[in-house]
């Protein structure tokens, strides 16, 4: 295996792991606010790592540039979308869950 392939596999593994965390979090966590945490963050990192893996496989070409653009875009929009969702929940007076109530 070439070093590039090893790097691809490492990044892909990381991406899969964090996306798995996002999925588990979205299912397991108790309320919309805490779900928004994993949805925006673990998922963003998972997607980011996977896209890095894709960019590495592609090597140096136009497509790589597009992948990087995609990555930047996801890193900007994902937290914004999560914020929009959380804010919508807040404005509808949805109470956050607490472990002691």
């Amino acid at each position, binding site marked *: 295996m070439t070093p590039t392939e090893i790097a691809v596999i490492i990044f892909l593994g990381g991406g899969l792991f964090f996306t798995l965390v996002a999925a588990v979090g979205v299912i397991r966590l108790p309320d*919309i606010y805490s779900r928004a945490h994993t949805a925006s963050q673990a998922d963003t990192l998972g997607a980011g790592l996977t896209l890095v893996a894709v960019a590495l496989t592609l090597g140096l070409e136009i497509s790589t540039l597009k992948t990087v653009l995609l990555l930047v*875009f996801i890193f900007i929009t*994902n937290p914004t979308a999560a914020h929009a969702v959380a804010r*919508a929940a807040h404005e509808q007076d949805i109470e956050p869950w607490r472990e002691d109530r």
Partner: protein
Amino acid sequence: MVNDILLGAAAVFVVLVIVVLYRAVRGPTMQDRVLAVNVIGTNTVVILALLSAALDVPYFLDIALVYALLNFLMAVAISKFTVERGGVM
């Protein structure tokens, strides 16, 4: 070989998408659904990128770009809708 790994990763991503679908269907609040669909959308973009690399079809990435845009717009539009149309909700 790398192509097979990428395809396998895409398959795992689709399975994760199916898992997240539970939240989109179950809710309980509308925001949960929007959030779940947003996660599904992000993963879709990633799947497209993976397929593009694995099958060596560069223009899949263009679709992925359009998708990323749409996904964001959808989450914001529905969130805005649920707030401003509070009476109808």
